[in-house]
């Protein structure tokens, strides 16, 4: 230290004036959400466009429902995704990237059991160029043999790396635990399935499944919405198919059950992943569930977080939140803790779940959660990218900007009694199933002693 004398911690924490009062909140400022222009093109593609001009950019989100029953579907879909921008009849991989970069654009392609997603952004005046690239790859991507071969090898290696990550091990385990062998669990293909995929299979899947009808394109930015939709129609008119993009079937209802212990040798931490049924945004109780979840573990000032981190020091963080799945929603209650406190952390987690039902949230807890829900929604919609992602997510679930506009009022209307009822219905420890990944030799005896544990 560069000072040899300094005040003590006690001296630092006091001033002559003493403690001061928290200032009141000032005047509320609102900025209306933009109107959304919407049109379904003759090829069946639904287009949403919003004018949000703070910076000269445009955000792009395209969702193509992309479900498949074949167990090998995820491997083919993953290779389709990684070679979609790798070549067309007239451009190679480098030329495609050059065309995007020239207008400051980037596109990312990802696929999961529900949908293929293309997300990105570019300078707003380059939107026609960006759309031209999309049109080219949708109608003329060749998925060249050499690219499929190389991406196949890279993908196998990436899967090996991903499956070494504890969070991936835990995610795959909890998906199987709650949804069995439903296709929703196939988030990452098996290496051997990837190795068997041919370029012909990729091209066949592209022709059959990468289609406009049932897909939704969302554009937000410094754009004239009418002109932008006309540009989309002009650019993507040649992208046609008689087929409709395929939605994933709803997974089976989650069955409450024991926590399955998953052994990971040498692990110094354990991943606790609990799950219970929840409510979708269509349900009139959704706003109530959102506030109840916040009080439990959905933000820093929650019961579970304050207990597990700030009082006990068991974890860096806890997460509790709603995940939407076809036909409904599930609650995820997740934390990572050191091996030597795993049993104690499981005990505290079950305690806080039970306490939420037996000692329902107070007025102060619900008011804080309400302010946070309203304020964080405002903040999340304050950027082009945030607004684009929110609109795209709502549209995928059949909801629109009016749902967003009305949501603060729904949050304001939630009563204490409604929170107590939802806590009882959705947060009881007996409603959950889950997994616990860790070194079973270290954590096994302690967690088994608490009961409700199955596994090795």
């Amino acid at each position: 230290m560069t000072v040899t004398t300094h005040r003590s911690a006690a001296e630092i924490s006091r001033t002559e004036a003493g403690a001061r009062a928290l200032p009141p909140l000032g005047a509320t400022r609102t900025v209306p959400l933009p109107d959304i222009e919407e049109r379904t093109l003759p090829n069946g593609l639904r287009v949403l466009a919003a004018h949000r001009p703070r910076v000269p950019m445009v955000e792009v989100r395209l969702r193509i429902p992309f479900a498949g029953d074949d167990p090998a579907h995820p491997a083919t879909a993953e290779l389709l995704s990684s070679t979609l921008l790798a070549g067309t009849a007239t451009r190679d991989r480098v030329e495609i990237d050059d065309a995007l970069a020239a207008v400051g654009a980037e596109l990312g392609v990802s696929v999961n059991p529900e949908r293929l997603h293309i997300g990105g952004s570019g300078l707003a005046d380059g939107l026609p160029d960006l759309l031209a690239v999309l049109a080219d790859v949708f109608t003329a991507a060749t998925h060249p043999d050499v690219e499929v071969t190389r991406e196949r090898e890279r993908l196998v290696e990436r899967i090996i790396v991903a499956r070494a990550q504890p969070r991936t091990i835990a995610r795959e385990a909890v998906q199987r635990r709650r949804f069995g062998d439903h296709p929703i669990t196939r988030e990452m293909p098996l290496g051997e399935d990837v190795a068997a995929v041919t370029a012909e299979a990729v091209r066949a899947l592209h022709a059959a499944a990468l289609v406009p009808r049932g897909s939704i394109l969302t554009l937000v930015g410094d754009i004239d919405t009418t002109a932008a939709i006309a540009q989309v129609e002009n650019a993507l008119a040649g992208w046609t198919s008689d087929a409709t993009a395929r939605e994933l079937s709803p997974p089976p209802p989650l069955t409450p059950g024991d926590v399955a212990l998953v052994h990971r040798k040498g692990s110094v931490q354990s991943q606790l992943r609990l799950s219970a049924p929840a409510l979708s945004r269509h349900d009139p109780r959704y706003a109530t569930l959102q506030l109840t979840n916040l009080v439990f573990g959905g933000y820093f000032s929650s019961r579970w977080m304050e207990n597990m981190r700030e009082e006990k020091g068991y974890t860096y963080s806890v997460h509790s939140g709603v995940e939407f799945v076809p036909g409904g929603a599930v609650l995820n209650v997740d934390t990572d803790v050191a091996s030597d406190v795993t049993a104690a952390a499981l005990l505290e987690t079950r305690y806080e779940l039970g306490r939420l039902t037996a000692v329902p949230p107070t007025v102060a807890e619900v008011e804080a959660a309400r302010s946070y829900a309203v304020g964080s929604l405002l903040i999340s919609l304050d950027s082009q990218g945030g607004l684009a992602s929110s609109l795209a997510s709502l549209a995928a679930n059949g909801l629109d900007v009016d749902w967003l506009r009305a949501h603060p009022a729904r949050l304001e209307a939630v009563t204490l009694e409604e929170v107590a009822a939802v806590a009882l219905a959705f947060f009881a420890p007996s409603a959950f199933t889950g997994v616990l990944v860790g070194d079973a030799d270290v954590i096994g005896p302690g967690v088994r002693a608490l009961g409700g544990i199955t596994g090795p």
Partner: protein
Amino acid sequence: MPAVELHRTTLPNGLRVLIVPDPTTPVVGVAVHVDVGFRSEPEGRTGFAHLFEHLMFQGSESLEKLAHFRHVQGSGGMFNGSTHQDYTDYFEVLPAAGLERGLFLEADRLRAPKLTVQNLRNQVDVVKEEIRLNVLNRPYGGFPWILLPPILYDTFPNAHNGYGDFSELEQASLDDAAAFFDTYYAPGNAQVTVAGYLDVDETLRLVEKHFGDIPARPTPQRPSFAEPVPGAQRRQVVPDAQAPLPALALGYRMPDPGTDLDGYLGHVLLGSVLGDGEAARLQRRLVHTDELVTDVSASAGLMGPLDARDPDTFTISARHPAAVDPDDVLTAVDEELDKLAAVGPSADELARQVARWSAWLHQENDSLTDRMLGLGARELLYGRAEIAVELPDRLAAVTPDHVRAAAGALCSSGRAVLLIEPAGDEGEQA
């Protein structure tokens, strides 16, 4: 996009103030940047700057433990803090109605944080969990930001692990915390940035109201962290019991952004020409042509561009199959650097990378949080928030010759080579 307005003042106690109004947003942000990072923590106390950042959330004279979090979130806002090489930042972003509350919360802990043994012990446990999560319990933990500096640098400030060793975190005492606060958290060593929907005069009045009575204290002399650029290659193998595939990282030194910004930006764009996008040199050569690596990236600045004073690190990192000899990867990287050092990128190639940077900078500007933190960090580090505003033009002015010179500088200097070798049961599968 309207021009960014920057209003500055310095309070009598030395606190620097930057106010950035934006009439288009319903949100406001308050950030405090303190001129101390993990490079300044004392020997024997690795990780202390970051641990201290955690302690600053544990209460202050007017705020019990947990009250800070509850007041921010209960006002509809979000908060965070982060510890970098040369600075530590604290911020909240709130609906505009929360402006004065945000200033109050930041001022209270800068004036009189409540440092207690109980909170210290609790946050040592929390930080250890953070390190287990991000480093110890995952493959490639700390790759390359913790593992590369000790190879490239010789002095403690530049070389040590900013997350800290568990044994040293456990030894941290309350008196260490008091000394650290009194030394580095003087108002003259800090800066408050307020951005978003606000009235400049009213905001200035509120800043004075809440921060003005923090007594001035001596401001520590900022040490130089300069050390010679290594003359030769330094190579080190690090086993990773959890990694299924080998990985490697190269570390190089960069120009001082404070005295040679154009040279520094030449390195920033060199990183893009090498690594950003499918058309980038190393993507084409290492991934697609030679098929040596699974993934490759190149970037300027250990924790991002323009995020530290001199010295800072230029990094190239890659993951590769076990069957590939890492020397073949190094040879291919060197050949690509030699080509750029001889000829430089084409004008079109560079223009495309500049267009992508321009777009990223627009996106940063669109997010109030990113804009506020970017302006605040550049103001604190270089005394010129304008750098953040001017960056699109400065990057557009970088020529192929600047990038050629940057490549030449990398080719002609010593460097660090970090090789990660799978060392566990899991690695044998690969």
